[in-house]
């Protein structure tokens, strides 16, 4: 499902709009909600929840639980996010949910590496959704120094970019300069 996220999302949106009498099967709504969460598009997820028909919003149904994940992400309540994600899910959502957990963890840990020069192990465990004994291993994996109860995150090394076509760049630059001179 993750392989072609954008095209899957477009397909699902089209399905929602072409549904007879404006009501699509509840699976469409749950899959679309999962797509929005994978793309970190919390605004669209919120409005999807608002416009979904009552038939798709059964108590404790997959759509409701996915939306509670979205709510927790909005308020940055990461421990609660992970606990909801670890519940039972129907088959068609299983793969998406496990991808979602990995994607959220990756995002949070990147943020931590950007924002913190040192962070306590307990806080890091809460952000990453792992238990206290595993968190040190997670930190070491990323090359962060572990010093007693405190961890020193390092920002990820900058990505080296490939070479660009010189002639094409020159042509484009000449265009700009001639435009600016006129």
């Amino acid at each position: 499902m993750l392989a072609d996220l954008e095209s899957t999302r477009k397909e699902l949106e089209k399905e929602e709009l072409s549904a007879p009498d404006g009501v699509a099967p509840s699976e469409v709504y749950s899959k679309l909600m999962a797509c929005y969460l994978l793309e970190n598009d919390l605004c669209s997820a919120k409005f999807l929840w608002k416009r979904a028909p009552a038939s798709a919003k059964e108590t404790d149904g997959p759509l409701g639980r996915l939306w509670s994940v979205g709510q927790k992400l909005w308020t940055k309540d990461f421990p609660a996010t992970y606990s909801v994600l670890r519940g039972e899910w129907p088959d068609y959502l299983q793969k998406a949910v496990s991808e979602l957990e990995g994607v959220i963890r990756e995002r949070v840990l990147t943020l931590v590496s950007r924002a913190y020069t040192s962070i306590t192990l307990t806080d890091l465990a809460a952000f990453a959704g792992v238990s206290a004994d595993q968190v040190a291993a997670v930190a070491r994996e990323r090359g962060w120094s572990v010093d007693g109860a405190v961890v020193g995150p390092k920002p990820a090394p900058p990505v080296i970019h490939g070479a660009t076509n010189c002639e094409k760049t020159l042509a484009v630059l000449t265009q700009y300069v001639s435009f600016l001179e006129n």
Partner: protein
Amino acid sequence: MSFPLESFVNSVKTLSSQGNLSCLYEFLENSSEMLSKNTTHLEAALSSLELGQHSLGILALLLARFKAGAGEPATLDRQMAEFVEGCAVDQIRYAPDSYAELCHLYTKKLLERSKAIKGLRVLQQAIAKIQASPNQLTSIHADLCHLALSAKCFRPALDVLDVDIADISKENGKFESRHLLLYYYYGGLIYTAVKQFERALFCFEIYFSVPSLSLSHIMVEAFKKHILLTLILRVEAPPPKHCYSEVARTTMGRRIRPFCVPYVELATAFAQRSPEPLLAVVTRHQEQFTRDQNTGLVKQVVASHNKMNIQRLTKTFVTLSLSDVASRAQLPSAQKAELHVLGMIEEGEIFAAIDQRDGMVRFQDSPEQYAAPEMVARLERELAQIMALERRLQQLDEEIQLEPQYVQKATKTQHEDDSGQACSSSQNNKVANNIM
């Protein structure tokens, strides 16, 4: 089928097969009264016409049906969808006003039944068919945005809103300023909902770019939202002088301000450092904000005030303890301060590093070197947009210079100038001669 309708159908078939479409359009305008009297037989008339060849005739019949309000909603929806999908573009271009009116009535019916989401694809297709170019504005655009807001499904409307408008379809004289204002107002609301605040601000600036003799409610509401958005984005209020006429901006501002007193007070309170005056204004005018349905935006303004205070600190300090941040930005605790700072780092609003060991925050300069490929790509994109805009302006300039009215006026003033100079030079000669 009654006799007038039979003759109507026959006329439609003959005129369409002859290709005499402007005649057909006039005939249809004249028959609208007859059609409204025979609403019960319209169904039969519809079935005897073919969509591809007689699109104009079917358009008139559908319009009469929608106006009468008769018929089952599901059938009407299906007929509308089929019509929009299958109609012949060259035929309907003769009757853009009827086409637009049909879409307006269709939107109204959907909104009454709260089934707005069904109309989104139909209207998107309808717009694509009648537009002469993707940058042309029609009155159906406002309907699409209205439906999107009612259905809370913004993707189809955003696809249309993201294209810049360069032209307006006159629709045989029936396009009103109301349609333009509504399109930008609803568009602004949609952008605010998906948190694209800069585009929303651009949309709400219509209140001073549309010349008018009197104020409209739409302009007043747009002004209120505009104030709130400038506070949320923490940018300077109206745009630079060379964009819009200075006079227009100040006069509009002066006329609208008396209607938006709470918002102007909010803006003045926002400029102060302490959050107390701001919160006082919010509680005092709570009712007005709720009536205008702006409470969500007002809460975001309060949050933005906190962020502004934290940003002020980056200008003065290099390192600061979290408890100091909390006290200077007037936040309740160091924990809250840490969460706020983390949120701002994520959004890219400040550059800082939190050190939990000492409980300090180190403020940094922006690490942007403007040398990465992403920056180059962004520069290329924006330059391409500007070059396209410049080409378009040159085109418009050429079109105006070739316009006969402009040429007439320009040569007339030139002749006046020339003859004036000739008169004055001849007078000078006379005087000089007299002296001599």
